[in-house]
């Protein structure tokens, strides 16, 4: 008997509250574009903030409101951009994944005028102190970028940051971390991209005093590929809009006196083998 009454009472109360909530749901409904949910579904859900918005859901909202481009997700790349574009019903042009490259290739032994530094071992601090090495443009080597990387894709090797492009998602955390603004996101049109690995704007005489691998601003590259290279403030810049990756850069490599033009990205097989041998030799040497 009690069981029956209890069941009825409970059933009645549940019904009342269910009705109440149902009515409230109708009254307090929030109109939301269904595309926001669909786009959030196809995004990688890493919530890394690489797009400049607070997480994937926020980015989806921004895309629907046309505050962000379809291909704004650096982690998803063109595959996700296509899906987002399909949901929005727009065409997407060929996009390239943006990945970071470092505009300084100086290993510890390449740097000149390095002084012992016992302060806080971060680039931010060392940059404020400012006298830990002679080059005021180059990498400080204390690995703020490696610590900032949420994907474990950046490591300090021989005093310079090395990106693991298999793990890198292009979220841009390292770009923000570098106090000397040496890291730049470039469109990876190929697996390997040519990069001017120097940021020193001093004239050749000064560069030679501070680094063994600094750009002299000699314009040798500009003379060979006038379209691609531009030397400004004693420093070479590569124009990635015109860069295709299919050019033959051998003459430039031969001419460049400081060898500041280096490839970043996933190495070709034969190159990877050579790199592994070099690293093994370096490990034995150290």
């Amino acid at each position, binding site marked *: *008997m*009690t069981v029956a*009454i*209890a069941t009825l*009472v*409970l059933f009645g*109360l*549940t019904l009342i*509250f269910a009705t*109440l*909530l149902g009515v*409230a*749901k109708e009254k*307090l*409904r*929030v109109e939301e574009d269904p595309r926001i949910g669909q786009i959030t579904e196809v995004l990688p859900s890493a919530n890394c903030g690489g797009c400049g918005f607070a997480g994937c859901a926020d980015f989806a909202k921004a895309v629907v409101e046309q505050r962000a481009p379809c291909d704004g997700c650096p982690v998803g790349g063109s595959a996700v951009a296509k899906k987002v574009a399909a949901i929005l019903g727009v065409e997407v042009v060929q996009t390239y994944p943006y990945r970071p490259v470092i505009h300084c290739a100086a290993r510890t032994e390449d740097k000149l005028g390095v002084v012992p530094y016992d302060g806080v071992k971060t680039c931010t601090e060392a940059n404020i102190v400012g006298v830990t090495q002679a080059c005021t443009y180059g990498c400080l080597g204390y690995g703020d970028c490696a610590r900032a990387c949420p994907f474990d894709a950046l490591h300090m090797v021989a005093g310079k940051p090395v990106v693991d492009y298999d793990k890198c998602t292009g979220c841009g955390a390292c770009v923000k971390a570098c106090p000397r603004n040496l890291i730049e996101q470039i469109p990876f049109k190929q697996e390997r991209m040519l990069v001017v690995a120097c940021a020193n704007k001093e004239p050749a005489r000064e560069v030679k005093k501070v680094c063994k691998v600094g750009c002299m601003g000699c314009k040798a590259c500009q003379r060979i590929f006038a379209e691609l290279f531009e030397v400004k403030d004693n420093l070479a810049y590569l124009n990635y809009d015109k860069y295709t990756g299919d050019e033959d850069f051998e003459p430039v490599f031969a001419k460049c006196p400081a060898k500041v033009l280096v490839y970043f990205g996933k190495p070709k097989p034969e190159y990877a083998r050579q790199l592994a041998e070099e690293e093994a030799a370096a490990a034995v040497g150290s």
Partner: protein
Amino acid sequence: MEIGALVGIFLSVVLVNNFVFAQFLGICPFLGVSRKVDMAFGMGCAVTFVMTISGVVTWLIVHGVLAPIGRQFGNPEALYFLKYVIFIMVIASMVQLVEMYLRKFFPALYVAFGVFLPLITTNCAILGACLLIDMNDVYQRSLLKSAVFAFGGGIGFMMAITIMAGIREHLRFSDVPKALQGAGITLLTACILALAFMGFAGIGK
């Protein structure tokens, strides 16, 4: 006389028997959402709202539904074993209501709360308030006193969490020993706050 009793109940539950500092209820949101003052205040408001409504509604259900139906069958307390189930149901419904309301009118607060808003459902302070009302003879006889008790409980929680958030905002700039960083210093702060609130014990006897 009546007003005096109500003020007494209110002060007692806000200061002397503060839910967080004296009865140690609702510690989870107290530690979880006390990083920023505005968010803590919002959480306190939501908890106050849910607690007041839940306290009143559960009182009404116990005395307006369960007791009369039980009396029909000879024993007013025959259905009291349903209390816990109904309390939880009422609280869950009220939280849903608050969630919908916030989403509609305060979307920023809704986003800021995140998972902590649905977690009010399992905030033991609210079930605690309902059960304390249910256990106390004084509140059993008066809906108004129960409402004041529940409301005061919410205000006490809001006060506690806002004070905590204020301290934690300042704590960010202080040199905390490495071993105590994070949860450690937070719990210590809460402990000292609770000690301070012990000073109110015995007031108003």
